[in-house]
């Protein structure tokens, strides 16, 4: 017996947009059996996992808080992915962005003023960009795969943050806990709705998503990115530099990840701590692909991922679902999405080798 992978004649546009829906359905179905296997009531757990987070207004506001950084990061990543620039290290760039913003917040701890938050945003963006510049330099100068370097630098970033919050930046009145002082009001992102945790960063995120759409659909740089990704030789012919595209993609996605980190520490967290996010930088990769690298699709898939975070917490409380279930769900979703994508372009045939050879 012999398996053969053959390309299909043509994948239709409808199939391309149907695969995310199919992937979600398969994930839910697998989740059902997973919960059954864990000895839980599958229907009830799924309800808590997927429906409960969306039942209240506060629930939706919390989804916005979670979806915000995911969409912000994924918007940047998606642009790079179009150019075949695979930035897997958004988590690290987010961390360095948070360090930059936190540094400003702490440096001007005694000051007040409307200028502090914008300065923090700037520092966050620069922090993320500088950190993404390392893989960009290694890629353009030495052809080192940005997949490996950006990913590995993530772990370095966590350690850098650790040095700071365990060391020089530790709160002097914090009973030796590894965390910085709480930021002052001037260094916190203002809330856009009282009684929720929704902050100004969500507005910025929406603007960025729309901006990303305009860039990709209407500008020469968006065209350049698509050409570099689809046909590198045609890009060279058109006079588009691959190296410049690599730099642009990595700096943009790094900067946006850094901005997301800024809004996390200036928003829900309010200080620097050793672990800033539940893996937003990695989850954003799934968000980008699930949203078909399209800015509007990314907003939708960002909410779906936010549901998996918040629903996972609810199911932890209500059904004693292990915390790892959220990660398993997200992983399954990416797995099914890639599988569906692959099978929409190729088909697998069983062939008997002996039968066809002479």
């Amino acid at each position, binding site marked *: 017996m012999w398996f053969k992978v053959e390309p299909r004649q*043509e994948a239709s546009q409808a199939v391309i947009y149907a695969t995310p829906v199919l992937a979600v359905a398969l994930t839910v179905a697998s989740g059902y059996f997973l919960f059954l296997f864990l000895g839980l009531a599958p229907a009830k757990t799924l309800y808590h996992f997927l429906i409960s987070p969306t039942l209240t207004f506060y629930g939706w506001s919390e989804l916005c808080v979670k979806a915000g950084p995911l969409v912000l990061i994924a918007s940047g990543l998606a642009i790079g992915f179009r150019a075949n620039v695979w930035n897997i290290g958004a988590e690290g760039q987010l961390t360095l962005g948070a360090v930059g913003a936190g540094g400003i917040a702490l440096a001007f701890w005694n000051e007040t003023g409307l200028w502090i938050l914008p300065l923090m945003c700037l520092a966050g963006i620069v922090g993320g960009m500088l950190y993404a510049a390392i893989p960009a330099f290694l890629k353009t100068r030495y052809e080192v795969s940005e997949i490996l370097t950006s990913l590995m630098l993530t772990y370095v970033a966590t350690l850098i943050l650790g040095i700071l919050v365990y060391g020089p930046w530790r709160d002097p009145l914090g009973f030796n806990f590894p965390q910085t002082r709480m930021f002052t009001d001037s260094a916190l992102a203002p809330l856009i709705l009282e009684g929720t945790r929704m902050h100004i960063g969500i507005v910025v995120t929406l603007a960025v998503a729309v901006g990303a759409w305009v860039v990709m659909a209407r500008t*020469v740089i968006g065209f350049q990115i698509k*050409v570099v990704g689809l046909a590198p030789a045609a890009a060279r012919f058109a006079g588009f530099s691959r190296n410049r595209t690599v730099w642009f993609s990595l700096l943009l996605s790094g900067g946006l990840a850094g901005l997301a980190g800024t809004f996390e520490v200036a928003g829900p967290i309010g200080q620097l701590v050793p672990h800033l996010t539940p893996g937003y930088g990695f989850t954003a990769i799934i968000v980008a692909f699930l949203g078909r690298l399209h800015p509007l699709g990314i907003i939708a898939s960002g909410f779906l991922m936010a549901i998996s975070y918040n629903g996972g917490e609810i199911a932890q409380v209500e059904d004693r679902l292990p915390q790892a279930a959220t990660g398993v769900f997200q992983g399954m979703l990416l797995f099914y999405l890639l599988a569906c994508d692959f099978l929409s372009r190729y088909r697998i045939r069983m062939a008997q080798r002996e039968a066809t*050879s002479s």
Partner: protein
Amino acid sequence: MHDERRTPRLALHEISKRFQTVVANDGISFSVAPGQVHALLGENGAGKSTLVKIIYGVLQADEGQILWDGQPVAIDSPHRARAQGIGMVFQHFSLFEAMTVLENIALGLDNAPDLKALADRIVTVSQKYGLPLDPGREIHTLSVGERQRVEIVRCLLQNPKLLIMDEPTSVLTPQEVERLFVTLRQLSDEGCSILYISHKLQEIKDLCHHATVLRGGRVVGECDPAVETARGMAQLMIGAELKQLTRRAAVTSREPRLIVDTLELRSNQPFGIDLKCISFEVGVGEIFGIAGVAGNGQNELAQALAGEVTLRQPSAIRLDGKPIGHLGAEKRRMKGLCSVPEERTGHAAVPEMSLATNTLLTARNRMGLAAQGFIQIRDARNYAARIIRDFAVKAGGPNSNAATLSGGNLQKFIVGREVLQSPEVLVIAQPTWGVDAGAAAAIHEALFRLAQSGTAIVVISQDLDELLVVTDRLAVINMGTLSPAIDTAEASIEQIGLLMGGLHGMETEARLDHEDMSNVV
């Protein structure tokens, strides 16, 4: 010799194949007798490739029947086709550069014997058919003609009863073509049928016993090429009166517009060719040809001229006296140098994008299709529509994807995209490669008109006939060096053929052939 009264080796009955809305083959029937050299003629998009893929088992027909020696067969894979005795030599070779001839052949066989025995068989077969080949040589050291031999020998090892050859001579020197024909005639005499696909009518007249002409997916005629005139076959193929291509009057003014001055370039590719001391001048309104066998530095030269590779020495290329050697492709375009690369899909055009979007690749600045970094999509659509109209491109419209166009139509679109920009200099590589006669005539005419308006044109082509028709002067590139330019009117095919082989190259090849044989046997 072939005998047409016997049971045909291969008979096709009402073969049809549809791709979504396009009917590629529509009730095609013809038969190939044992030992017959059968030409399959047709424009690009006539359905030749689809038909050949069906015969070789790459595609399956929707309707119709294939008879092999009178028996119906289902050829559902190339494996099955080879088991049946069908061999195919593709236009583009599939060889691994860094591996030896022997390893490549072993990889391509369904049931390879052990390497020692295989090497012996390769030598036997290659000697028998006059295709000298050393099993131990690595592919990247071989000329294109020798590589084709590898592909042919690979087929012959399977003792084929039908050999399909897809445009086999487009990469060969005239001398190599002669040698190939000797082999094919020998095969035919031994009873092997040959299905020969080509657009070079003279070759078909020289070689083939019978020709089937396809147009729009149907058989539109059959003829005996020995009797039918080349002109008659071309008209059958296009279905319209063929425009007589008249050579325009030679250019009198030689005021140099493009000067290439001792251009040196080291290749950045593992098996690339270094360009050595290349110098030539092209005058206002002159068409300058660069001939040569594929893989002698044409790609490298085309990229260096277009600016895809920039040079250290700015003055190595001068346009109207201004040095541009250091500039990239888009900056050179802004100075007036446009180009058409050889590869249509993925290089000259992005197949996944619409024709309108594809105009942005080269015309975004020169034709004002983008302003302040924003794409003016309406202007791009209008420009694409203008190209489609002026060059009679068969396409759904400016929003059609480039991938949906046939090779000839896409080439007309690409050439039109550059020509309508009225550049000062146009560098065009393989302008009519794999393009049907109608489209080729249209492209040549466009080049003539462009030259008349004062553009200096460089045509890099492997098609000698084409160069002899369109150019005023030409030079031959061999192993990265360029011969002195000769006036096309005074050039003879033999003279150019010898330059193409490179006198030095010919000698070594002959010597190696001899040595190889004595070494291995």
